């Protein structure tokens, strides 16, 4: 193939200077990039405002795409349920019958629980839900795991608040603009969640690995055996995440450090629930540490 048209300007002095200056500008731009990079490494929330403004512009587009995807992926299920509705109805009736006794027992237990707690004068901190919104897109080409929520400070969302779904913990908010917010997913390599094992309350740390799994490390005691299927829930330590939100399940038997699979996949999730930080004062202090750079 013939040589490509290159930038050689020939003998014109003016063109030569113009080319030289454009390279100077390019090198200067690269240096500005280095400075921004250093700034964002040492002071992560520095560019939150710029990113938030841009996110305000593009999130409506992403919300539209997300809405379309949900609509299209709902069609096969809709057709299936139309034909299966009679048999499903019968099955559900039978199930309600079978569960009736169980529900009664659970109601009695819940009532007893409340009464006994009142008797003990236990004061529970309740992390009230702030808003329910959708995650619309994520940073699919980056090694960091952020997702964007289509609710922001106008809906009462604040940085540091935890985000979860019915299945389990999703992450926490690190950057908030008026209508959008950035969620640091628990899969992110810089995310750390204090957890405890459901079975015996063993304290542990669930840290993101970056490849879609979670690393569960024992906090404190050594020589801990993690069994396959051990479930972990948030412990409430640290003040951001309210206790007892399911986080992850151990994938294979291991000692001290185990790989875990999260309960709530951010992709299949229907709605994300933003809750108040468990102890808001602690959240305000800790939010900047993990902000996107």
């Amino acid at each position, binding site marked *: *193939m*013939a*040589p*490509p*048209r*290159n*930038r050689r300007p020939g003998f014109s002095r003016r063109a030569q200077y113009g080319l030289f200056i*454009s*390279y100077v*500008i*390019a*090198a200067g*731009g*690269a240096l*500005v*990039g*280095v400075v*921004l*990079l*250093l*700034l*964002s*490494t040492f002071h992560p929330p*520095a560019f939150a405002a*710029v*990113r938030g403004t*841009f*996110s305000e512009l*593009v999130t409506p*587009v*992403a919300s539209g*795409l997300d809405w*379309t*995807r*949900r609509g299209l992926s709902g069609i096969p299920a809709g057709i299936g349920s139309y034909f299966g509705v009679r048999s499903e109805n019968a099955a559900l009736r039978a199930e309600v019958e079978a569960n009736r006794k169980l529900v009664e027992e659970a109601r009695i237990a819940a009532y007893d629980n409340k009464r006994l707690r009142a008797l003990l004068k236990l004061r529970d901190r309740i992390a009230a839900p702030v808003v329910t919104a959708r*995650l*619309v*897109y*994520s*940073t*699919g*080409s*980056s*090694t*960091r*795991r*952020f*997702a964007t929520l289509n609710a922001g400070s106008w809906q009462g969302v604040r940085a540091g608040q935890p985000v979860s779904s019915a299945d389990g913990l999703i992450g926490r908010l690190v950057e908030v603009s008026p209508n959008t917010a950035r969620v640091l*997913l628990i899969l992110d*390599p*810089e995310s750390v969640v204090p957890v405890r094992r459901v079975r015996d309350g063993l304290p542990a740390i669930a840290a993101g*690995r*970056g*490849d*879609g799994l979670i690393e569960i490390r024992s906090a404190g005691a050594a020589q801990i055996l993690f069994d396959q299927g051990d479930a972990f829930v948030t412990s409430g330590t640290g003040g951001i995440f309210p206790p007892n939100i399911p986080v992850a399940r151990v994938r294979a038997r291991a000692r001290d450090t185990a790989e875990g699979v999260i309960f709530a*996949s*951010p*992709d299949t999730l229907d709605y994300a629930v933003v809750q108040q930080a468990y102890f808001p004062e602690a959240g305000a202090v800790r939010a900047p540490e993990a902000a*996107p*750079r």
Partner: protein
Amino acid sequence: MSGSPYAGLGKVDISTRARWLAPLSIIIGSLTVLVPFKASFPILPPLGLMMLLAWRLHRPDLLKPWAPVLLGFADDLVSGQPMGSSMLFWTVSFIAIDVLDTRIVWRDFLQDWLLAAGAISLCLIGGRLVAAPLGAHVDTVLLVQVLVSIALFPVLSRLVARLDGKRGVQ
């Protein structure tokens, strides 16, 4: 005029729409992260960067040497990488390609592909080093992402050739 076999002779041998279409298509490439999938590992190729390289290798004189500074800034706003990383790595690979352009004169597509592969690897690996802590378990998926992106480059190259349009049409 159109019936003449000499129509178009003597006209400038480039399409003018590329002037605005190139930056636009690169930014649309960067905005592909808006697809409604919440990835749990780096799965999407860096399409903004690949569009930039495809335009650069297809039309070397089209984009100014400082263009990747601005385009990289736009990419940093949505990509989730630390601010400044695309600005730096895109510009460095752009200048490196300009330098290599003066060394390699006669050229075929394989050499273009090789240059693009080098630039994609530089930007993705550099981006991983500045974004995620060294201990993160992202290296295997990153390698897959690099390979997929390199394999996809010819597709984008064809797309850019199509967008650039028929030469000589003003």
